[in-house]
């Protein structure tokens, strides 16, 4: 939704509590506990949350979306048989889920290269934001060789790819109405990019 107008000002709640209801805590716990069960990965999980009609997505609160995503995952993928034990919680959280993998080939781009993002419009999951499609930028950093969400979200494998930090000017992204004194950087996988 980057760059879309009409959502109004950002309003921060004063003295905001970490949770706004008890059930939010349980949803957080359930999502993390079941996520450790091996039936799905984080990209499958994100797609289950996000692939819904925009009016529904925008009208649900954050934890309501988590709950709806979890219900869908359980329905589509079944219940995990591997159960996270309380004693394993600290180690599991500390380990997290690193997504860097051993490179199998050289990176196509180097720092300083001018690139243009592809105008991709897949029906499946992607992490190339709409506002940054078909735009010219510069490689600022090579992050590493990371699991590719577009494929990982389908449950067919990790298909790791080189991941780059790509920087765009505000004017390139948002034209004459953009902020010429700002830039936006995204993390873009190699299949999103072409040499400029």
């Amino acid at each position, binding site marked *: 939704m*980057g760059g879309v*107008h009409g*959502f*109004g000002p*950002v*309003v*921060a709640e004063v003295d*905001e509590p*970490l*949770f*706004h*209801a008890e*059930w939010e*805590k*349980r*949803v*957080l*716990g*359930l999502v*993390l*506990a*079941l996520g450790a*069960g091996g039936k799905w990965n984080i990209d499958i999980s994100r797609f289950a949350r*996000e692939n819904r009609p925009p009016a529904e997505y*925008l009208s649900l*609160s954050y934890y309501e979306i988590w*709950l709806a995503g979890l*219900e869908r995952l359980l329905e589509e993928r079944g*219940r*995990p*048989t591997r*159960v*996270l*034990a*309380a004693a*394993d*919680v*600290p180690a599991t*959280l*500390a*380990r*997290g*889920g690193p*997504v860097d993998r051993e490179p199998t080939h050289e990176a196509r781009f180097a720092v300083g290269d001018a690139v243009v993002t592809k105008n991709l419009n897949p029906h499946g999951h992607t*992490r190339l*934001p709409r506002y940054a499609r078909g735009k010219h930028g510069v490689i600022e*950093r090579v*992050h*590493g060789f990371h699991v590719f969400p577009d494929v990982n979200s389908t449950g067919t494998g990790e298909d790791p790819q080189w*991941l780059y930090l790509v920087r765009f000017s505000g004017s390139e*992204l948002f034209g004459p109405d953009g*902020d010429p*004194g*700002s*830039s*936006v*950087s995204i*993390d*873009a*996988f190699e299949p999103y990019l072409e040499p400029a």
Partner: protein
Amino acid sequence: MTHSDLSDVQIRVRALESALVAGGHVDPAALDALVETYEHQVGPHNGARVVARAWVDPGYRERLLADATPAIAELGIRGRQGEHMVAVENTPDVHNLVVCTLCSCYPWSVLGLPPVWYKSAPYRSRAVADPRGVLTDFGVTLGADVSVRVWDSTAEVRYLVIPQRPADSEGMTEDELAARVTRDSMIGVGTL
């Protein structure tokens, strides 16, 4: 964002949890431990320790800016949603702002769980197109000569802003400095 009737959701969540516990798919004590972790252990005080250390220790600052993940791990801070960290430093000329336009990616290991506004449509839509306008919503007005760098967390890399050290903090201890660092300043919507 609107909320559905809370009691309905509460009932739905209870039913789901009961069924999963009854079926042996979830250990309720694990749920308690997970909630406890994010409610009481992980939070912005983690990030504040990183920032304060960077302010007082030039060698640490250098390691942090070069490769943040191991530098943050030096302080015993690591884990979920902090596996691949990048630290970006505010200067008199450059202000950094972090967003995730796609969902609500956030560096949990250093900042804990994100506030509602960070996950909201207004922030996610405007942070990239009108970052100065968003900063104004937070009461931060930057000079026209200060450029804004927005970091959209579109993959698994998470960004931590190192705010500028307050001018009046001469002689403070590292702990005193850490107490001055706010969550908002480490997202980039606040200054110190």
